[in-house]
């Protein structure tokens, strides 16, 4: 590498040399003219002129920016000297790059999730209103609650309601209906979140009241994709579920919602309603100066007020209202996992730093003689230190750059394995970018390591104790005691840190395997599921829904390759409704209901499609419809819990009595008991469940259902279900007179995404564990290799005195393994203490799982053994003659 303009300077220097020659010649002429002999004249001329080289150097220096020049020379030299030891350079670069890359990628995710505030204006004031129950807080609300909360103008500036996920909606009016994500919101939703209005306006109070008309607000995405970004769309009508809706506004691109939304519809709540169903959620913006504690205290009073107005049973016993910071609510249970990841990241960074330090120390001690020689021929102390620092900095910067590349690729990879249910990471990974601050931080750490650990050996090496360093013996008498000890300590800590990481990873891998082995109570294989939105006015009673379901089932069953088909309002492992029930003829307890259970409305074929076993009685058939006696099927857990002695098949249950007029229905005869399934998540033990036929839903419930959940279709196929996808879609479109299906996925995929978060944690910690393991191995390898190199002479003497190859090998291996074992012991202690923090991530595995605590140290020792094997072999290859003769 040449600094720009240095060729020009070289030319000018040659010019000057010639000029000086000319000057000397003239002076010589002058001296000759005064009568000196030719030799004398030349001597005098040279004497008068002085040293031409000094003159040239002065001119050269005058032309240069001194430090830049020195830096360029140092850099050139550093690169040359690094290139001379490609192995060292590659390993160090690798260590720095992995350390920086892994950290940057993970940090970026953590930063976007945990550290960045919500993307809404003044996010600290946003709170989630929750129902407090004995099972914990639920983000749920009913209309009377919402009405009451809205009146709390002493603590809230605004209160807004919106749907959780919604039932979806069908955009009609085009060639093909399209299923889109639509949610109902109250009028304050947009101002509360500070949504940027791109065109038109948001809902007015009049539009958000009963009979407020059919209006909608579009998202930026839908507006662009479906309507080509037409600026004149505001004021026009679009068809939703076959009805015209007037577009009143378009929201700008920057507006991020929890789950993606295509369009918004007004809630149009009747605030005087006594409908007790909790089927939406509410957030509020606190008044300036109101603290969370103050607001919570007020909400306690509001709950009392609610009980007085709607009866003691209107809230669960011991329950009440409360608020939680929205940010905390959203990232809630992610906080701890992410902090654990952060800890793991710190470990990897520490290992990387220890490794770099180790490599630099080893390199410096191997070069003591070279440095001493340079000092002896006149290099200043500063020059040597500067030179060594330039080398470490060059390494740090180059490694940092590689780290950036790894970080970028790593982030892509992380987002790809993101299970999709980590809040605020969208499926495209938007919102998570490589954070420049973090990059600077990690780069800073590595540069600091470079300087710090480059400086210690540099200062040591530049000590003017030349005689000792140059002295023959000391060049090969081994690493100086102190440096050797520092490096041994570094290696021991590396191994210890790596062991902790790998044990953590092993625990998570075991957890994931256990989760994978859990039997969810049904067959996930060869089952395709999809959603159909039944939100339109067409489906506000049960009969038309039952009609579509029956026809769809018939068409699906007729398809080749389809074994069975069914529909339901929930999907196991994905969604679950809960409902209270009473047993006819049995006295209720203190609560509003005898008990509560999961509540699925299904069709015939549901149990056979999922392979859920029938234990007693019978399951639903096509004949269990609105005209036949009302029936229910329960699961084994419900039978065990509520009929510990009696026979449930002799009893009738009353579902949802008192929950509101929409749920009024006659008692149902229990006709069968089926096997338990896991509905919430794989980790959750199955709870009590009741099933009813879709065709026997009360009309009011169907209407309510249609606004909060789509209809799920379940198709069991003989082969890979995706091969039958097109005919299935076509059949369902025909059966529903043109409705589209969406969210098509297999039950295997639903199950995989259910344990996606565990997989995410496992993969991350495994990456950390492996990179830690690799770096620890490099550390052990590096120390032993240098140690063998330094002791070549000693090895030679030992061989000359009759030591066998295996003597030498075991000498080296013994020394290396001692370091590794020390590290393992320290690491085991650390792991015993640290893995307790992992306990909440583990499933079916103890924090001190013997498998992990035995297998991992063994693995680490094995890797260490491999790492010392190579230098040990090298030790036995020493030729005694060369070793002894070497200088």
């Amino acid at each position, binding site marked *: 590498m040449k600094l720009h303009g240095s060729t020009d300077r070289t030319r*000018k220097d040659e*010019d*000057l040399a*010639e*000029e*000086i020659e*000319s*000057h000397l*010649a*003239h*002076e010589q*002429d*002058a001296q000759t003219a005064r009568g000196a002999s030719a030799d004398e004249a030349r001597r005098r001329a040279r004497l*008068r*002129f*002085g*040293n*031409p080289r*000094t*003159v040239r150097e*002065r*001119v050269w220096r*005058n*032309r240069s920016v001194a430090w830049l020049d020195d830096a360029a020379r140092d850099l050139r030299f550093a690169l040359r000297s690094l290139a001379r030891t490609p192995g060292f350079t590659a390993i160090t670069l690798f260590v720095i790059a992995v350390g920086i890359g892994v950290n940057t990628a993970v940090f970026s995710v953590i930063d976007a999730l945990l550290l960045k505030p919500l993307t809404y204006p003044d996010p600290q004031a946003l709170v989630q209103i929750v129902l407090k129950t004995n099972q914990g807080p639920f983000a749920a609300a009913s209309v009377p609650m919402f009405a009451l909360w809205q009146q709390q103008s002493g603590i809230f500036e605004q209160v807004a309601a919106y749907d959780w996920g919604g039932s979806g909606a069908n955009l009609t009016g085009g060639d093909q209906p399209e299923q889109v994500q639509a949610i109902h919101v109250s009028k304050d939703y947009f101002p509360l979140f500070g949504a940027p209005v791109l065109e038109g306006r948001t809902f007015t109070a009049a539009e958000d009241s009963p009979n407020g008309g059919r209006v909608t607000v579009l998202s930026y995405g839908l507006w662009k994709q479906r309507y080509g970004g037409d600026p004149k769309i505001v004021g026009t009508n679009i068809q939703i579920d076959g009805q015209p809706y007037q577009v009143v506004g378009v929201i700008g691109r920057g507006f991020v919602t929890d789950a993606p939304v295509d369009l918004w519809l007004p809630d149009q709540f009747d605030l005087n309603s006594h409908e007790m169903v909790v089927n939406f959620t509410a957030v509020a913006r606190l008044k300036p100066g109101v603290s969370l504690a103050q607001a919570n205290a007020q909400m306690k009073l509001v709950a009392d007020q609610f009980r007085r107005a709607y009866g003691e049973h209107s809230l669960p016993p011991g329950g009440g209202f409360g608020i939680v910071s929205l940010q905390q609510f959203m990232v809630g249970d992610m906080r701890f996992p992410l902090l654990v990841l952060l800890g793991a990241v710190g470990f990897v960074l520490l290992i990387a730093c220890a490794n770099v330090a180790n490599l630099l120390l080893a390199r410096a001690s191997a070069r003591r003689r070279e440095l001493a020689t340079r000092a002896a021929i006149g290099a200043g102390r500063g020059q040597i230190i500067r030179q060594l620092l330039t080398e470490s900095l060059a390494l740090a910067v180059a490694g940092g750059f590689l780290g950036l590349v790894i970080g970028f690729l790593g982030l892509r990879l992380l987002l790809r394995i993101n299970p999709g249910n980590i809040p605020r990471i969208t499926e495209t990974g938007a919102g998570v970018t490589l954070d420049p601050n973090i990059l600077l931080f990690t780069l800073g750490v590595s540069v600091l390591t470079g300087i710090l650990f480059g400086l210690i050996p540099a200062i040591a090496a530049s000590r003017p104790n030349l005689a000792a360093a140059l002295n023959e013996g000391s060049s090969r008498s081994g690493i100086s005691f102190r440096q050797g000890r520092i490096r041994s300590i570094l290696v021991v800590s590396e191994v210890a840190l790596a062991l902790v990481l790998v044990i953590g990873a092993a625990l998570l891998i075991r957890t994931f395997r256990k989760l994978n082995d859990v039997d969810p109570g049904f067959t996930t294989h060869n089952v395709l599921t999809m959603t159909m939105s039944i939100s339109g006015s067409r489906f506000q009673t049960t009969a038309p829904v039952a009609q579509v379901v029956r026809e769809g089932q018939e068409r699906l069953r007729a398809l080749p390759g389809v074994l069975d088909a069914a529909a339901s309002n929930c999907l196991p492992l994905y969604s679950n409704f809960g409902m209270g029930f009473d047993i006819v003829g049995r006295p209720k307890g203190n609560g509003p209901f005898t008990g509560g259970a999961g509540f699925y409305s299904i069709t015939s074929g549901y149990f056979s499609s999922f392979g859920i076993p029938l234990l007693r009685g019978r399951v639903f058939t096509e004949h269990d419809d609105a005209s036949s006696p009302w029936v229910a099927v329960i699961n084994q857990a419900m039978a065990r819990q509520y009929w510990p002695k009696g026979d449930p098949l002799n009893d009738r249950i009353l579902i949802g009595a008192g929950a509101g007029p929409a749920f009024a229905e006659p008692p149902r005869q229990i006709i069968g008991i089926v096997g338990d399934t896991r509905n919430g998540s794989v980790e959750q033990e199955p709870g009590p469940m009741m099933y009813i036929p879709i065709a026997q839903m009360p009309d009011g419930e169907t209407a309510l259902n249609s606004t909060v959940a789509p209809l799920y279709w379940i198709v069991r196929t003989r082969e890979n279900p995706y091969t039958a996808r097109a005919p299935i879609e076509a059949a369902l479109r025909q059966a529903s007179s043109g409705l589209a299906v969406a969210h098509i996925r297999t039950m295997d995929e639903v199950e995989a995404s259910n344990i996606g978060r565990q997989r995410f944690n496992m993969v991350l910690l495994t990456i950390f564990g492996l990179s830690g393991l690799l770096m620890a191995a490099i550390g052990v390898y590096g120390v032993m290799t240098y140690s063998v190199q330094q002791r070549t002479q000693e090895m030679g003497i030992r061989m000359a005195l009759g030591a066998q190859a295996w003597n030498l090998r075991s000498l080296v291996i013994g020394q290396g393994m001692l370091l590794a074992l020390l590290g393992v012991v320290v690491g085991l202690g650390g792991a015993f203490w640290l893995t307790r923090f992992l306990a909440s991530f583990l499933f079916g595995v103890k924090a001190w799982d013997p498998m992990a605590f035995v297998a991992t140290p063994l693995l680490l020792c094995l890797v260490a053994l491999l790492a010392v094997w190579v230098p040990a072999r090298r030790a036995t290859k020493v030729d005694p003659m060369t070793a002894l003769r070497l200088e």
Partner: protein
Amino acid sequence: MVLKRPPDAGDVLQGTLDMLILRTLVMGPAHGHTIAQVIESTSENALEVEQGSLYPALHRLEDRGWLASEWGVSENNRKAKFYRLTPRGRKELASATSRWRRMTRAIDLILGQETE
């Protein structure tokens, strides 16, 4: 006024040598040896130019654009690099001379008061 460089001669002496070089070249282009000779002889040998410091000064002046140079043949029939004053060099000489005059006058005034 000796141009043998004492350790901390600094810019004053350097600047003075620059001025003398520029002044010498007013008479016409000359090569380095001639310049040294002329400075020495016109100062009645009171100023002895350390020949080694002449060239750094010449090159510095050329880099600043006050001198231009080209190779030619000397009176001794030898190859030599001839320097000549550029218009900017002439201007610099004028301002350097007036600076010098002001300074020596000030020094004269002080010295005069003390001796007389």
